[in-house]
């Protein structure tokens, strides 16, 4: 005990440094965590968070029995898994391909151009989508027109929403997401390639037997992280892409929380929905992590 106290005294400046960020964490992260109790209360602006009456699981009950609930869950999960299935392999393939070609002008250009869309803001990205797809004047619709399809109102077609959301995401993020795999490939032991060449392995075999296995640990990590985020789909982009025509396939839990909570001033119910969302996410993260640990010995913790 005295020893610890001595160590604290000796490095008191460290505690001075960390004071501000820790205060910040407590105020802006831990107080809202505590504020989540309004999900179990009937929040009243005048009475405040502590003074509002407890109502137990009323809001959760209402959520589970709301006619919107199955649709919200379905949309959230479908968009999430669609993004995962489409978005997960592409950066890996891109990294494998880039790893095969020689460093030079072509490789640098490919990398520079494919990374660039990552830095486009959500607002601009959605504007680009809407403009390119707009009926009559958008370039995509003109191509479809040329191919003999009549004018399609892409953004107003509920059946197309998920594909537009997912593939525009792949377009925007594949390059940037490949960086981490490229880094992993750069650190593969060169003697493995030499040994493979001695044994007469073809290029394809080298990719399958050396490159892919060396990416495996990072793939598992990324997979756990994205599965742990299954319920937290990209709110900002979906909200901007929504319009009254596509709501049936585009309304997800997070957009619903925003609309009911802030626009509808239904704070307690909306907090309950948000809490339900985070709990599912956390459970998923823990489950997936433990499965990964058992199956592959790779895990986050």
């Amino acid at each position: 005990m005295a020893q610890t106290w001595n160590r604290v005294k000796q490095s008191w400046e460290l505690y001075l440094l960390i004071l501000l960020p820790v205060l910040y964490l407590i105020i802006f992260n831990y107080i809202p965590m505590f504020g989540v109790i309004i999900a179990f209360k009937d929040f009243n602006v005048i009475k405040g968070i502590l003074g509002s009456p407890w109502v137990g699981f009323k809001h959760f009950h209402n959520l589970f029995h709301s006619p919107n609930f199955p649709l919200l869950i379905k949309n959230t999960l479908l968009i999430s898994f669609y993004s995962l299935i489409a978005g997960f392999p592409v950066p890996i393939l891109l990294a494998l391909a880039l790893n095969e070609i020689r460093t030079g002008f072509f490789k640098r250009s490919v990398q520079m151009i494919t990374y660039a869309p990552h830095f486009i803001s959500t607002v601009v990205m959605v504007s680009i989508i809407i403009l390119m797809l707009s009926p009559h004047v958008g370039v995509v619709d003109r191509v479809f027109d040329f191919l003999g399809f009549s004018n399609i109102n892409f953004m107003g077609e509920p059946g197309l929403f998920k594909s537009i959301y997912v593939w525009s995401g792949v377009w925007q993020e594949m390059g940037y997401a490949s960086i981490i795999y490229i880094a992993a490939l750069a650190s593969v032991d060169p003697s493995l390639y030499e040994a493979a060449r001695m044994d007469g392995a073809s290029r394809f075999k080298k990719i399958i037997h050396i490159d892919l296995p060396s990416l495996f640990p990072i793939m598992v990590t990324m997979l756990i992280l994205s599965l742990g985020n299954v319920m937290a789909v990209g709110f900002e982009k979906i909200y901007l892409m929504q319009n009254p025509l596509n709501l049936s396939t585009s309304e997800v839990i997070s957009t619903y929380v925003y609309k009911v909570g802030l626009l509808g001033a239904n704070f307690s119910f909306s907090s309950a929905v948000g809490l339900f969302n985070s709990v599912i996410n956390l459970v998923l993260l823990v489950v997936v992590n433990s499965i990964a640990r058992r199956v592959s010995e790779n895990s986050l913790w």
Partner: protein
Amino acid sequence: MIIQQKIREPFGDRVLLYVIYALLALLTLTVLYPLLYILSSSLSSPDAVVSGQVWLFPVEFSMRAYKSIFQSSQLMLGFYNSLVYTVVGTFINVSFTILMAYPLSQKKMAGRSFFMILMMITMFFSGGLIPTYLLVKNLHMLDTRWALWLPGALSVFQVIIARTFFMASIPHELQEAAQIDGCRDIRYLWSVALPLSKPIIAVMTLMYAVGHWNAYFDALIYLRSEHLFPLQYVLRNLLILNAADPEMLANTAQSLRDKGFEQVLKYALIVVACVPVLIMYPFVQKHFVKGVMIGSLKG
């Protein structure tokens, strides 16, 4: 025989390599084309855009859209506000991140793992939208610039990257030598550790800055006064709320011409919004890559 093998790859390998080159070229064009198309459309005449003549290069070159953008006071104000949010917000971000990361990188600090856990928990649990909103409201920060600076001032991910860097890249001997000379932590951080950490601070600054410049959601929930709106929020009102208006889809012959100019204006707005980020992009691309790589080392 051996020499021959060195010079010529097997047939199958060469074919695979050509296929890879072709696919990469195709992919790059897919990424590049929409960007070029937007740039060209923004520089074309409304007639050419609406009648679908623009495919790759500008048709009937015109800068009219850009002129009207720079005459819009709303947009210029948005630019100014975004600049203020980005500069001040990034300064707060970077300061907090260093203040948090440096003590966490010091093994001698008692209770280090407690602070580490305190921070990591926030990565997995959060109060969510409504409790955070209520907090900001109770702190009387609604509709002030502070609402865009303080919530989210610290990214756990960036702290971990900075901490890893402090631990891995700054030699321990330096600190021991400094301590013997009577240099305590604050002075050591300021005059030894920070100057050695310029690369990581640059990466951090860029990541935070891009985040601030591109953000619109905080403004959407916390701000009400028009004179505080950042560029992205103004853009959203101009580009998306307009475009989602179903009345615009039912176009008549007369409105078509007006709509034509609106279209060109939108393309030009997109270009203007991207310019600040894309201008610095080629210079900083390497740093971004480095940042991701440092982040991928487990801390």
